[in-house]
């Protein structure tokens, strides 16, 4: 299958800072991608580059076969409402939804209206007076109802309450099942979206450090928990992504274990726990647990 996005050697520098650094990947049609990474890792910059809102310093971007910059036929197929999207000061959500109809060729006004009711979005309130969650809802509604072949959701969960998050999850799944398209979810709230993702891209300090199938990625690591001495003995000679301990107990995150190794661990009295996508990303992007908890 032909990729709809091909990126190679992509770099974006702001002064001496490389916000995106030598990144290369492809996106295939009809899949849900997670673009994960910490705050300031370069997620939004990368999406801005893919949607022609930013100019690359170096490298090649092809979206639907050509550069997205100033090409209306490419931009027609995209939707990217950034988390910090700026709206005209005097706009209310109804103005946003009304004008969306003029810009997105696949816009479904009835679907948008349904989502407005479900998300309980006040359409006649000034955008700048909306709460963070309501603002996220505006972006989510535009993203869903635009039905763009390549849709970016930038931190869609920010400020949404649990019901609204579930609603987004349900509507997105149902709608892409009916009208398949490529979706890129960018977020640092990884556990929230983990089940949605088919493929994961992790970016850290501008560099792409993971480009893997989500299922595969989940199997790449395991946590070993047990008495300190037993854990130490078991992980000796293995690559340890993370280590933690309280008193005589210890846990270590190690790379993929084979069936034999699992049996070996069990025989040594150790417990094996799966590592969530979030934990894995946290390990890979170098935060400590206390940092995660404080976030």
């Amino acid at each position, binding site marked *: 299958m032909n990729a709809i996005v091909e990126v190679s050697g992509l770099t974006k520098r702001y002064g001496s800072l490389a916000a995106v650094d030598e990144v290369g990947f492809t996106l295939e049609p009809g899949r849900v991608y997670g673009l994960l990474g910490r705050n300031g890792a370069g997620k939004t910059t990368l999406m801005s580059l893919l949607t022609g809102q930013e100019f690359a310093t170096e490298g090649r971007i092809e979206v639907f076969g050509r550069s997205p910059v100033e090409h209306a036929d490419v931009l027609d197929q995209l939707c990217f409402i950034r988390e910090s999207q700026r709206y005209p000061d005097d706009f209310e959500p109804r*103005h946003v939804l009304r004008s969306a109809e003029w810009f997105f060729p696949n816009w479904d006004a009835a679907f948008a209206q349904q989502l407005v009711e479900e998300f309980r979005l006040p359409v006649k309130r000034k955008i700048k007076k909306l709460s963070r969650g309501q603002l996220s809802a505006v972006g989510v509604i535009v993203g869903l109802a635009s039905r763009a072949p390549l849709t970016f959701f930038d931190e869609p969960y920010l400020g949404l309450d649990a019901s609204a998050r579930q609603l987004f999850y349900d509507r997105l799944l149902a709608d892409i099942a009916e009208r398949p398209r490529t979706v890129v979810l960018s977020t640092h709230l990884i556990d929230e979206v983990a089940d949605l993702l088919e493929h994961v891209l992790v970016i850290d300090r501008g560099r792409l450090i993971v480009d893997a199938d989500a299922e595969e990625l989940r199997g790449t690591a395991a946590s070993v928990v047990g008495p300190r001495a037993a854990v130490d003995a078991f992980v000796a000679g293995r690559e340890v992504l993370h280590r933690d301990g309280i008193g005589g107990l210890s846990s270590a995150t190690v790379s993929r274990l084979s069936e034999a190794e699992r049996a070996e661990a069990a025989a040594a009295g150790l417990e094996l726990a799966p590592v969530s996508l979030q934990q894995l990303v946290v390990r890979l992007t170098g935060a400590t647990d206390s940092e995660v908890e404080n976030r």
Partner: protein
Amino acid sequence: MNAAAATLAVPATGRPNRVLAVFRLHFVNPVTVAWMPLGIYAFIFAMNWLIWLIVNVATTDSREGMSEGTTWSGASMFIFVWLLVIAVQAMNRTFHFALGFGATRRDYYLGTIAALVVSAAGWAILFGILAMIEEATDGWGLGGHMFASVYFGDDGPIARIWYVFLLMLFFTALGLVAGALFVRWRTFGLVGFFAVLALVLIGGIAWIALTSSWAAVGSFFGTLGFAGSYPLLLVPVAIAGLLGYVALRRATARS
């Protein structure tokens, strides 16, 4: 996956006209573009009318003197400044938004210029109609003037609308280029622009003064008259339009 691929491409036939989309975007909220300036204008007019009334009641001078004097009124100038502000804001308010909705910079600029030209034309026509009413009612019944002022001469109502339109375009273009520079280079762009503008103006004045050419300048415009002078505004308008595009062409949603 195969079914997915089949539905992915958007048929070219359904493609929206983005210049038109941007044009409409500028008018989607009529409060800012129409109701607010109309309200302010109505208020200014009401204030002026009351003052004319007071003058009429309080003085015994001839109506002709009053009628003559009020033709120098600057009360109508509000709308020109408003258009400048609207143009600056149009850029700053909608550029990031339109880019987020997938407009190209080129389509955005063309749609914005179209919107600004149309609104200048709309205001100029309204201005001209009000001026005609003003003349027909002997200055709103009080010998007052707000629209049929001396600044737009007495070449007839159509010519007045044309002059007003050109002056509005001039203010709009000034706002447009200032807005584009702000969107691209933020405060530095604006400060730089007005610094250069001030230098050019002072330089021009110095040149005229040092070569003792004030009389020549006066006779130049005198010969051209209103009909010849007002269209000269199209020169700075065109320069501003080009400069604005140069600034916007490489502007990003981030800057």
